[in-house]
């Protein structure tokens, strides 16, 4: 079948598997899901569907924790030496507030940008704790990551992940063209959970003075190979290296 991939994916799934609604009822342990459980236990495709949903849910929960923590870090830099764990505890205690407060969209603070170079901060959510991740650190499968960029000028930002096998995953945005963002610090809205593939992991943030798409960033990455993407007019690329186990 020609046309968009989602058509082919849906046709490939067929008609005999439980719907996503049924899988969510199973995931959330609603009564009357014994038949669904029996199907999933014998169906590798449905187990993969369940796991894919689980990973997205974990990343979403982590993004809320990290978003709260990034605000706390920004405030703490001035006057509030609150330990990281306590800040996360506050985020947990403020569960309803997390739902009701507007999600982060605006720059955290413009004065957070130093000099004329963009910056990249990576946050990790692991077992209820949120920490900044330093270049070269060891990451675990299941860690959820979120990214903050500091921009001296208006820019479009694309973040890609490259695993040890060379597989490229868009981290932000998930697809399409990244919008222009104003000068200042921005916590990017997407969060992702690391899979179980061990090895080296690279995170690359493309910061460009014109709108950049995920596809353009992937092409630039492919052109550069192991050395990284070639220099491109109007773009800066920041790279972080990690070891995933």
């Amino acid at each position, binding site marked *: 079948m*020609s*046309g*968009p*991939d*989602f*058509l*082919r*994916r*849906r*046709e*490939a*799934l067929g*008609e*005999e*598997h439980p*719907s*996503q*609604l049924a899988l*969510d*009822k199973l*995931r*959330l342990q*609603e009564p009357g899901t014994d038949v669904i459980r029996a199907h999933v236990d014998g169906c590798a*495709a449905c187990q*993969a*569907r369940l*796991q*894919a*949903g689980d990973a*997205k*849910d*974990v990343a*979403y*929960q982590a993004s809320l924790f990290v978003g709260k923590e990034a605000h706390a870090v920004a405030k703490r830099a001035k006057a509030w030496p609150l330990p990281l764990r306590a800040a996360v505890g506050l985020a947990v205690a403020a*569960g*309803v507030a*997390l*739902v*009701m407060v507007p*999600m982060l*969209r605006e720059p955290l603070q413009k004065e957070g940008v130093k000099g004329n170079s963009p910056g990249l901060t990576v946050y990790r959510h692991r077992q209820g704790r949120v920490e900044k991740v330093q270049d070269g650190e060891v990451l675990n499968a299941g860690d959820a990551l979120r990214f903050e960029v500091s921009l001296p000028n208006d820019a479009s930002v694309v973040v890609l992940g490259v695993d040890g096998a060379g597989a490229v995953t*868009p981290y932000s*945005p*998930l*697809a*399409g*063209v990244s919008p222009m963002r104003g000068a200042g610090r921005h916590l990017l*809205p*997407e969060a992702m959970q690391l899979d179980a593939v061990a090895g080296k992991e690279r995170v690359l943030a493309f910061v460009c003075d014109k709108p950049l*798409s*995920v*596809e353009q960033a992937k092409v630039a990455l492919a052109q550069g190979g192991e050395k990284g993407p070639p220099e491109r007019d109007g773009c800066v690329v920041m790279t972080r290296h990690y070891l995933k186990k």
Partner: protein
Amino acid sequence: MQHDEIEVLYRKYGALVHRRAVAILGDVHEGHDVVQEVFVNVLRAPDTFRQEASPVTYLYNAATNVCLRRLRDSRRRGALLERHVSKEEPRTDGLRAEDAVTLASVLRDVPEDLREIAVLYFVDEMSQDEIAERLGVARRTVGNRLEAFREAAQKAAGDSHERP
């Protein structure tokens, strides 16, 4: 509804609503907005929610309604997402991010009577029989509308590829 009750609900179901909204709208930001709107609606009519035999079904429907309304609104505003379709092999582990962006752009363009069926089939991955039963229409009607949606999606993909 008590403070701790809505907190428990949010903790249990918030991710589900967000995942579903992103799958339909193809946008993480809008997904957060949908989560807020759905739970605000639950707060406004807590008894309706409590009486539901299946909270998951209730929240699925609530999220669908909010998302379809947002698609209608965005179409009126003429807002369209960029289309960038990846060419990897088919997988069956749920709607991928690229797919969600593409699907959302097609959903914005198609007539309203195709949208809900397309969401039920491509996002919820319901069978055509399940959709017919849920909407109270003939299976043939479901098949015809899905075919019309497929044609619209293929045309949209063709238009996208023809662009410079």
